[in-house]
């Protein structure tokens, strides 16, 4: 395995801020790492933490949730709920032995294209440092 490990990060971006932010990064020609696979959701509050677990199970090395800054939620309070859920799920995964670097959340507004690129970079760097996700990823043992 001489090839460098290129992590796969699944990002759940809220439709109103972070997705627009990612879009802005693209249209402003800000380079961001191609390791990220984006799933658009209506609100960060829509992200059931089981999505994160499922992504990790299906081959993601890291996950990222991104939503509007506190107070800016299109649905007024969705990101506040998301925040509570996220910290708890992160703590739980950490307890089980999943490196916390794999589980990330950020606030990225529609005008923060550069911040989005930065968040992706930070996330990918973090995941790179801990290596491929080997804990409870689905493997085809005895298939």
């Amino acid at each position: 395995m001489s090839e460098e490990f290129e992590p796969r990060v699944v990002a759940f971006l809220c439709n109103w801020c972070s997705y627009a932010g990612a879009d802005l990064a693209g249209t402003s020609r800000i380079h961001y790492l191609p390791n990220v696979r984006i799933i658009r959701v209506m609100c960060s509050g829509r992200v059931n933490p089981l999505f994160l677990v499922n992504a990790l199970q299906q081959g993601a090395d890291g996950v990222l949730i991104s939503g509007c800054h506190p107070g800016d939620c299109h649905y007024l309070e969705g990101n506040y709920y998301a925040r509570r859920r996220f910290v708890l799920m992160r703590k739980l995964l950490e307890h089980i032995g999943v490196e916390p670097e794999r589980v990330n959340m950020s606030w990225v507004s529609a005008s923060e294209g550069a911040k989005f690129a930065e968040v992706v970079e930070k996330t990918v760097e973090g995941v790179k440092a801990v290596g491929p996700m080997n804990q409870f990823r689905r493997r085809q043992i005895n298939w």
Partner: protein
Amino acid sequence: MVNQEELRNKAKEVLEREDVRRLIGWKRGTYGFEAAPCVIEKPEEAVNLIFDPTCVQNSASFIVLEEKLPVPRGQEPDTRKIAVMVKGCDSRAIVQHIVEKAYDRDDIVILGIPCTGVLDRRKAEKVFGIIEKPAEASTEGDKVIVKVGNEQKEFERSEILMDKCLRCRHPNPVISDILLGEEVEKWADDDFSDVQEFESKSPKDKWSFWEEQFSKCIRCYACRNVCPMCYCIDCVVTKLRPQWTRRSTDISENTVYHIQRAWHLAGRCIECMECERVCPMNIPIMTLNRKMTLEVKQMFDYEPGLDVEAKPLLASYNPQDPEEYIM
């Protein structure tokens, strides 16, 4: 400890009430160190009821375990109350049920019993082996007395009681309509040192511990079914559309099952330790729940199952919630 005569009389009295349809309590088991939970409907059955340190099961689970079939056309649903005998930890489950609007406060009659700790079957079997006759037990001050046939043995609390009792913060029912016996003094506390000790391990060590534990799981779902807080009609782990967890048992699916279970109890677990007690594969399930309990306490200063007016943790928020992990 509560007088058994008084307990039966009160239970009988409650069952005789017109607005009560059934009572959940305990009776002597057929063998071993654990009583049998029982659901009775007739006042004359109250003579079988007991309460002593063998009554380990969480009685509040049986309120939500009741199956309600559709009422046949032309019949009225039975809206009479359920009476339930509760220990301290059981009563917290009821509070949390009310918080979550599983049922109304008026739907139940709570017979609270101050508790001096319950036996740990595993600890007792290490001493006596599996015994064919039901054991009896009582507490006297700091000592626990276990009677097996004609043999009687005295134990220190830590030798024979369940771990949850050794760190019990609520030995008295936090909610009750009728209190049976005298309130007892709190004699233990919880410093979560075991959780914190585990936290100091490296991710690799943590995973190798849980990998071994989770790979044992046979997915009998006893931990889910016994849990008073697991009362969804359609559980996410058995749903087929969408199918979040597969039914095959391997380390991946087993881990995800346990993550889901612990996650869905975050901020709801009332620490009755039933999940760990029932596990036939001896998985320390409670450790996961305790981790969540500790985090919830530290981050949100929240303790479930104490206040019926409280809001469920994850259905509420505070703009000042901790943000240190967010980029």
